[in-house]
């Protein structure tokens, strides 16, 4: 009986199991083997040991791309704070909620290619809206994407336009916070800020945790925007040569598959470490309801 239940269960989840083996497990294992090979696609892989890894350690563009990607992590706390902030505003039982919700959410479902084209035009140094806005405020104009000091902040600014994707998830979480918790805290004499800190944020912390982890994974593979918007690819003085972009170039432009797979494996290990770190700290700031 027990084994029959096991077989039925496994049959139902078998599409996933087969998919996992073909599209996740095999690629990761193969990627590790290729990372130890000199593999130029057209000729079969040749085992070279750790040569790719030691070459990467001496590759200045590898380090550059790692630092560029690390810089983008500034975006994570800003996006979380802005997303929660806007969601809290919308959670005040305001009139016209559907209108505001739509305005904030729509940018999140615009195709990245279209977003990139639009912001390329906004960041145009001569005619763009961004510089016109700065001038209107009496501030100096910036080079945005053509200046190595402002190219990454420009990407961050553009990404924050899409913060509505997170906002709408926080809003759903906020609407699930039981009203009696707020009332109890108010009776105990907690002010609005104290209630945010001690009631609202702990109550939605599982969702914040989920958003931080997925946001991190997303930033590790930052690619499309940089691929489309910076010309030459990688931007002025390699300031937007992000990790995934350099990996892609190694694989599909220089045909160094083994080298690119080594980069992939390093990214895999880095994202694993980052996820474990966030999980470790989560015991201190993520609260689950009693009885779970």
């Amino acid at each position, binding site marked *: 009986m027990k084994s029959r239940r096991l077989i039925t*269960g496994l049959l139902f989840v078998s*599409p996933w199991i087969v998919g996992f083996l073909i599209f996740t497990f095999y690629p990761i294992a193969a990627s590790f083997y290729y990372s130890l090979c000199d593999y130029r696609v057209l000729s079969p892989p040749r085992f070279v040991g750790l040569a790719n890894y030691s070459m990467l350690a001496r590759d200045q563009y590898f380090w550059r791309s790692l630092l560029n990607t690390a810089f983008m992590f500034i975006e994570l706390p800003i996006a979380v704070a802005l997303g929660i902030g806007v969601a809290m505003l919308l959670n005040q039982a305001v009139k016209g909620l559907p209108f505001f919700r739509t305005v904030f959410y729509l940018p999140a*479902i*615009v195709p990245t*290619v*279209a977003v990139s084209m639009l912001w390329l035009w906004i960041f145009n140094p001569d*005619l763009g809206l961004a510089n016109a806005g700065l001038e209107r405020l009496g501030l100096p104009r910036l080079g945005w994407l053509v200046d190595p000091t402002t190219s990454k902040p420009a990407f961050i600014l553009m990404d924050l336009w899409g913060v509505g994707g997170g906002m709408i998830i926080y809003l759903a979480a906020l609407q699930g916070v039981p009203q009696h918790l707020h009332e109890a805290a108010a009776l105990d004499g907690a002010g609005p800020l104290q209630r945010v800190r001690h009631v609202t944020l702990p109550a939605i912390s599982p969702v914040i945790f989920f958003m931080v982890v997925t946001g991190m*994974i997303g930033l590790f593979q930052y690619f499309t925007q940089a691929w489309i918007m910076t010309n030459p690819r990688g931007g002025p003085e390699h300031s937007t040569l992000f990790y995934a972009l350099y990996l892609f170039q190694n694989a599909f432009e220089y045909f160094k598959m083994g080298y690119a797979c080594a980069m*992939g494996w390093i990214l895999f290990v880095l*994202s694993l470490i980052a996820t474990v770190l966030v999980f470790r700290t989560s015991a201190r700031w993520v609260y689950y309801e009693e009885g779970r």
Partner: protein
Amino acid sequence: MTGARRITVGITYIALCLLSVLFAAPFVWMIATSLKVDRAVFTYPPEWIPRKPVQVSYAGKMRDLYTARLNGRTVKVAWLHETPEGVRAAVLDPEMRARKEIVVPSQSLRQEKRFFLRWGNYPRAIKSFPFLVYLRNSLIICIPVVLGTLISCTLAAYGFARLTWPGRDALFIFVLSTLMIPYIVTLLPMFLMFRAFGWIGTFLPLIAPAFFGNAFDIFLLRQFFRTLPAELSDAARIDGCNELSILWRIIVPLSRPALATVALMTFIWAWLDFMGPLVYLNDESMYTLALGLSAFLGRHAADWSGLMAAAAVVVMPIIILFFFAQRTFIKGIALTGMKG
């Protein structure tokens, strides 16, 4: 309403209005640019309302119309050409007939413009890239991806939510942990594998994986299936139904909202995907809308009104979909936030 509450509400509305102006501005700017004539596109400081310069015929040629202050009076003039002393212009009478030619400093001239929407940018943009072909390709990919995801994730979610078997919960946690593997790590071996299959340059690498489930949608459907009362399936089991028919006859009809959410989100995800088509498709006639749009960008680098019109055309289907299915969207998002 107490005074303090009223102030909070006031501040909330002011903040919301300011923020919505900031968030809407790029959209409005995209639409405004897409309707401008070229000369209005290259105007600085930029203008929000599409206008085009008014022109008059003077000595058989079309000239731009300006207003000038002349001896304390405002007159209309036609711009002829620039000279070292200033702008040579023809003063016009109210019937727009030329009276005399003058030279005035350029700062004293103000260009006459009128409201004008150049709808022609849209057909021009659509005609300059094979829009319908790309649209068809996007649909050829999106529809089977949605179907495959629905079938495979429903089966797996049913196994995790409504059947009890040893090792189920441990395996489910394992499924969730695959969410944390960056896509780009598996991309290269997958490319090499599909190349060995001879699938590069076909839609198959973009479609086939959808039939094997994905952690996110399995999670979402499992959460929903768990909210349905267990008695429903128990009664059916006593009546001798097998699990597959319980799923098909009882669970699926009750789960339409959740399935609609998965279908919608999968469709949008496949519609937006850029890297997949970039890696697997190499013939331009097989490009998707997203990839075709980036190729269009490469060829029309400074044609901003055309680019914005093309971008608007690609964005529109998604926005229309959102307006028709807004409730499904919001429900589904609430579902992702569900705990357990």
